[in-house]
């Protein structure tokens, strides 16, 4: 009995971690800044590739993952300054520009590094509960997902940068009039989003096949989580993750992966039909 209960929790944690980690970066970039970032998957891939490259060069895995997160963040800042900055008032054009970026990056990497790079193996460690054995690393992923949610909350609610960022997203002109360096805030926010995407890739790198298009596996989940979460990512992302993970886990467990995937997407359609502003929209309305 305990084994079954634990296994249910473990499966939930696994899906939840995947949804939250893949969505966290996009929650900031798309949810807060309103940039439809089609290159989100490529930031994830960037995190994975840098991690694996560093591990092959002899860097310990956690350090490599930290470096990969920072690298993705820095690239994010560069992308913001060079491309996204010019297109804030043209959301459809950002979609096109970032999509183009995504194509260039995946194809460029294919030409430069070949169709795949060798994996690094998941860190050792497993444990047994009843008839099942579990990988410890998957629980580390769950812990990281919780950590990321907490970090986003602290950064945006408890720091000076967070106040300025929220002010800028709400009304850039007013924030600028009050002395906020809007350009810097945009660049830093986009960089933070990219860094979180990189973190996702870094964390999943040991468990996956490394190919230039690997980011695509995360993209659907990340977008639906953010959309269901709604505009206020601080309120919405976590409950969206819980809700979608529960739906998917239950369907996966009882009817297999196909129904799990279909079911989750049907749930998304229903939720945004009933709650066009996502879960955070509902929470905000209740709060008023």
């Amino acid at each position, binding site marked *: 009995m305990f084994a079954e209960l634990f*296994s249910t929790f*473990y*499966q939930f944690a*696994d*899906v939840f971690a*995947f949804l939250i980690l893949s969505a966290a970066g996009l929650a900031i970039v798309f949810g807060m800044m309103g940039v439809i970032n089609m290159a989100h998957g490529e930031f994830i891939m960037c995190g994975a590739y840098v991690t694996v490259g560093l591990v092959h060069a002899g860097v310990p895995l956690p350090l490599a993952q930290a470096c990969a997160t920072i690298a993705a963040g820095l690239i994010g800042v560069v992308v913001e300054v060079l491309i996204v900055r010019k297109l804030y008032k043209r959301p459809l054009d950002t979609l096109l520009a970032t999509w183009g970026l995504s194509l260039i990056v*995946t*194809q460029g990497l*294919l030409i430069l590094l*070949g*169709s*795949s790079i*060798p*994996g*690094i*193996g*998941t860190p050792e460690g*497993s444990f047994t509960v009843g*008839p*099942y*054995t*579990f*990988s410890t*690393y*998957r629980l580390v992923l769950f812990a990281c997902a919780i950590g990321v949610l907490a970090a986003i909350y602290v950064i945006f609610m408890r720091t000076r940068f967070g106040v300025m960022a929220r002010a800028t997203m709400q009304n850039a002109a007013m924030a600028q009039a009050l002395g906020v360096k809007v350009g810097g805030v945009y660049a830093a926010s986009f960089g933070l989003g990219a860094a979180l995407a990189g973190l996702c890739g870094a964390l999943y790198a*040991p*468990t*996956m*096949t*490394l*190919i*230039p*298009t*690997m980011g*695509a*596996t995360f993209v659907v989940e990340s977008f639906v989580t953010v959309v269901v979460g709604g505009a206020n990512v601080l309120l919405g992302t976590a409950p969206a993750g819980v809700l979608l993970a529960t739906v998917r*886990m239950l369907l*996966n*467990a009882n009817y*297999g*992966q*196909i129904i*799990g*995937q279909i079911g989750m997407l049907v749930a998304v359609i229903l939720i945004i039909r009933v709650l066009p502003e996502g879960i955070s929209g509902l929470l905000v309305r209740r709060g008023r």
Partner: protein
Amino acid sequence: MLNRIRGPLGALALAAVAAMAPSGAMAADPIKVGLLEDISGDLALIGLPKLHGSELAVEEINKAGGVLGRPLELIHLDPQGDNARYQEFARRLLNRDKVDVLIGGITSASREAVRPIVDRTKTPYFYTNQYEGGVCDANMISVGAVPEQQFSTLIPWMVEKFGKKVYVIAADYNFGQISAEWNRKLMKDLGGEVVGEEFIPLGVSQFAQTIQNVQKAKPDWLLTINVGAAQDSFFEQAAAAKLNLPMGSSIKIMLGFEHKRFAPPALNNMHATANWFEELDTPEADAFKKRWRAKFPNETYINDMGYNAYVALWLYKNLAEQAKSLKLDDLRKVMATGQACVDAPEGKICVDPKSQHMSHRMRLVSVGPKHEITVDKDYGVIQPYWLGEIGCDLTKKNDKEQYTPTSLPKK
């Protein structure tokens, strides 16, 4: 182009072009070989060796005097793993470029997308992958291995060695579904039991639930016919969860070279039956690998699809020269004699007249804890007998159908 060249200058230019044309046997018009292989997108990993195999064969054949004294000209298009593009590009190659022969396609879905288009023409089509078998179509010549060569060897061996209970993890499209059907039929004949079957949508990369389902069902071994880079993540995740079950497959090792891509021991205890794998070390195979690596030194792995793509062009040369023609009907007359063979690196293999599929020298290979490859059994040459047995006979009639163990020809 030509009608734009006018006046004396144009005439001069034309004369110059004519003077520059090469002389000798190879001066003849090239034979156009249309090639559809994915070298970008999710399947680039396994598709790139197919392009390389074709390029190597074309280079060698042209050096050896071409086909019927004419050089081969490769026209390669990259459908990027998209079936709609496969259809578009197949039409373009057949109708606009008017290729003499069409080769390619990776997934069975792409093959079935292209086949109806080829069937409306008189162009021969070579499909160069191992696949789930059953296509009875006069336009198609299948160069890869089929279930009677792969599953009828592997599954009895797995049952004898590991036990009668199997769990199937398969990609959810025609290849995975029909392969699972083959497994069901063979397990029934062997008195075995399929304790679970899971069909996974392409692109799924997370397998925690699957791993637990497997542990719950307690199989003796796994049949892993999952497809694509995303689904391959299963092996890493299963190893991390200490699933530790023997695995059998018709596409792992020799096709996807997972043992080269994942850190050991993720692929430990994987078994597969193959007509080609790079670790094969006969003198003919070694010579072939040397020629390949001289041209493509950075190849991660020479996989069976790349090898089959190479063999397909030599087979085409033999067929055309025996027929003294490039016409499909003439090539089929040669195949109907049962004497259409090719001296491939695996040995001499021939086209079965009834089904237009190849015989193959099959070996059972196993992966060890350090991802070393051992050959556990040599089955010798196995004929592609199944289609002939169930009533497909292309020398008599063209069914244009794909049959499966539960979908047999109407008597």
